């Protein structure tokens, strides 16, 4: 048995093809009654929004500047500072019609009718008439509700077969948009009296549109509190270096450093945050001289760099029993070879891993016992953190099945019971409360002296009131723990004669007490030892943990 640490190979990925009836350019229909009304309604909405931010001729000027650089309709809305996301979902030709009307209000020449840039709703674009790509969003915003953006995400979701009801979105945009948009803003400001304080950043409308599309396509709720995260990172190779010029601008305070990562030289210092910061302090004249001004056309669309789906960890806890003296708690590997074939963490972890379909698991328990010590009674409290579960919610019935399978897998030597999902807030209980936890143990002890009734009585008398012992770090753990003395409390001791040289001892001790060392004395480093108490040598032959006193799993 070994702990599998694989990623996508492990769970059978469902292979899904593109449904035959979809048309690549067909828009995903978003339920929005306002647009069944048409352009008049849209015009009303847009102009009422414009009242708040772009008065009078400014809106006309903005529309013209952006039209000159072939920006898409939605990017134009951004610079018009429109924050009603429903407006963004309107078809492009309606938006441009609205812009035409706005410009017409100012008695200026209307925008040219032969805009090569407009998509109609059902149009299938042939390569000859390929419209220009928006230089401000690289067509990301334009296709936010088209299959280009949505399908790769759906494909991955179906392939991993997640069983969730909601999602949250995390988007990383191509770095090139920062400089492009800054350039457009300066252009507008040079030609119109426009502060640009309320210009909408690309990310917010993009997330809103993409989120709605995914909601529609997968039937999941877009919610910021969701535990299921869809991470998408986009790139645009054509513009990904367009911030480099800033290193030549002294006022930008932008420097790149070369560092070694894993032996290779890597340039750092050009994070999106740093680029934005540098642009904020760069003077407009410097930008115009050294940077790209006005924003130039692009010849390629955006690319999807990575899509990563991840569900936050789920915790399952319970108590385990270990009935074998040949099983360690966690995998015991020395110099590449295993010392015990099985381990508790693997028996429980592998079963749960299959049921929850997760990438990996972490086993955490309240203390531990050696491989040759049995864990009996109510069992030891533990929990498992399951990483990126594809099925985060299992029923109690399925958890009961898991308990049976764990017993089967271990040949009835490991039992897990009281398995239930644990809320994150309860996890610290396992590790805290060390001082108040009691450990009950039972053991078979050999004495070099003959066992007598007086001896047993004396031990029981001491055992009623308990003793405090000093334990120096046991020799067997000295290589990994610091050398120090620990005062530990033996709360109760019970002794029973089992033969001429044998005793059965039961102890109730403070958590963290080294039981074996208390019996044999560890070359005099644990005092008083059991041997000291009866005045002879002693050794421990068998040890069992009877109970770990800790309320676990927590009640709901």
């Amino acid at each position, binding site marked *: 048995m070994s702990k599998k640490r694989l990623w996508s190979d492990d769970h059978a990925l469902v292979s899904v093809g593109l449904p035959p009836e979809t048309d690549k350019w067909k828009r995903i229909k978003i339920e929005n009654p306002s647009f069944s009304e048409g352009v008049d309604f849209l015009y009303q909405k847009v102009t009422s929004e414009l009242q708040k931010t772009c008065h009078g001729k400014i809106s006309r000027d903005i529309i013209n500047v952006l039209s000159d650089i072939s920006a898409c309709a939605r990017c134009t809305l951004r610079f018009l500072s429109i924050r009603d996301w429903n407006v963004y979902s309107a078809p492009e030709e309606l938006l441009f019609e609205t812009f035409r009307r706005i410009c017409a209000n100012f008695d200026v020449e209307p925008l040219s009718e032969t805009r090569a840039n407009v998509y109609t709703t059902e149009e299938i674009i042939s390569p000859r008439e390929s419209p220009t790509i928006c230089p401000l969003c690289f067509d990301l915003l334009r296709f936010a509700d088209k299959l280009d953006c949505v399908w790769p995400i759906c494909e991955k979701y179906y392939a991993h077969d997640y069983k969730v009801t909601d999602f949250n979105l995390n988007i990383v945009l191509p770095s090139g948009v920062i400089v492009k948009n800054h350039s457009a803003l300066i252009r507008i400001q040079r030609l119109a009296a426009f502060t640009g304080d309320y210009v909408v950043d690309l990310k917010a409308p993009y997330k809103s549109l993409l989120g709605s599309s995914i909601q529609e396509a997968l039937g999941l709720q877009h919610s910021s509190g969701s535990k299921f995260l869809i991470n998408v990172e986009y790139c645009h190779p054509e513009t990904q270096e367009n911030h480099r010029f800033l290193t030549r601008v002294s006022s930008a305070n932008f420097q790149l450093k070369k560092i070694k990562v894993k032996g290779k030289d890597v340039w750092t210092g050009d994070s999106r945050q740093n680029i934005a910061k540098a642009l904020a302090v760069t003077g407009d004249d410097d930008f115009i001289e050294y940077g790209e001004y006005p924003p130039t056309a692009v010849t390629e669309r955006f690319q999807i760099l990575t899509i990563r789906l991840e569900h936050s960890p789920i915790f399952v806890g319970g108590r385990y029993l270990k009935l074998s003296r040949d099983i360690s708690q966690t995998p015991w590997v020395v110099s590449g070879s295993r010392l015990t074939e099985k381990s508790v963490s693997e028996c429980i972890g592998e079963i749960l891993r299959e049921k929850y379909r997760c990438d990996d698991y972490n086993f955490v328990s309240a203390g531990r016992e050696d491989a040759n010590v049995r864990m*009996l009674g109510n069992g030891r409290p533990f929990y498992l953190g399951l990483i990126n579960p594809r099925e985060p919610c299992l029923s109690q019935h399925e958890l009961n099945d898991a308990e049976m399978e764990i017993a089967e897998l271990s040949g009835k030597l490991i039992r897990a019971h009281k398995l239930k999902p644990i809320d994150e807030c309860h996890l610290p209980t396992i590790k805290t409360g060390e001082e108040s936890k009691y450990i009950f143990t039972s053991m078979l002890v050999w004495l070099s002296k003959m066992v007598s009734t007086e001896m047993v009585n004396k031990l029981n008398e001491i055992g009623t009131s308990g003793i405090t012992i000093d334990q120096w770090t046991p020799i067997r753990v*000295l*290589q990994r723990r610091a050398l120090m003395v620990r005062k530990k409390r033996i709360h109760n001791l019970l002794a029973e004669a089992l033969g001429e040289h044998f005793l059965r001892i039961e102890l109730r001790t403070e958590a963290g007490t080294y039981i074996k060392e208390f019996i044999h004395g560890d070359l005099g480093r644990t005092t008083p030892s059991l041997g000291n108490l009866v005045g002879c040598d002693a050794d421990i032959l068998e040890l069992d943990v*009877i109970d770990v006193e800790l309320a676990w799993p927590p009640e709901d």
Partner: protein
Amino acid sequence: MIEEDYETSRYTDLIENYNRDPLTYLKQYYTKYYHVSTDKIVNTTNKKRPLHKETVICVISVSKEFDSTAKRTEYKVRACLAGWIVEFNKRLLEDEGLLFRKPYTEGYIAIIKPKHENTQIALENCLTEDEYKASRGLD
């Protein structure tokens, strides 16, 4: 609820050895190695504590065969293995006699963590118990 039950009959052979020599129980934790110093007077033993071939730690003490009635009062004790000293036995400061009364238990001199994990390399300058007994003509 699994009841713990101890079958003492399983251990009859074991405790026969234990009863003959009470320190036999140490054998399940430690293996003795010997080193004889060049002047052939001081003998030290290295007790190797292997935890199923896990990291080894050594306890240094004076062997029982050491003649404590000899005239000299000062001896240099060599550990004869490369490593780090983890602990000096401070009990010896209060009770020097421990060194000879209980050399294999409370009277140890020091604990050393060997530099080499491989026991054969770490203790290459030492003799096993059988080799030592043969060299001294003991049984």
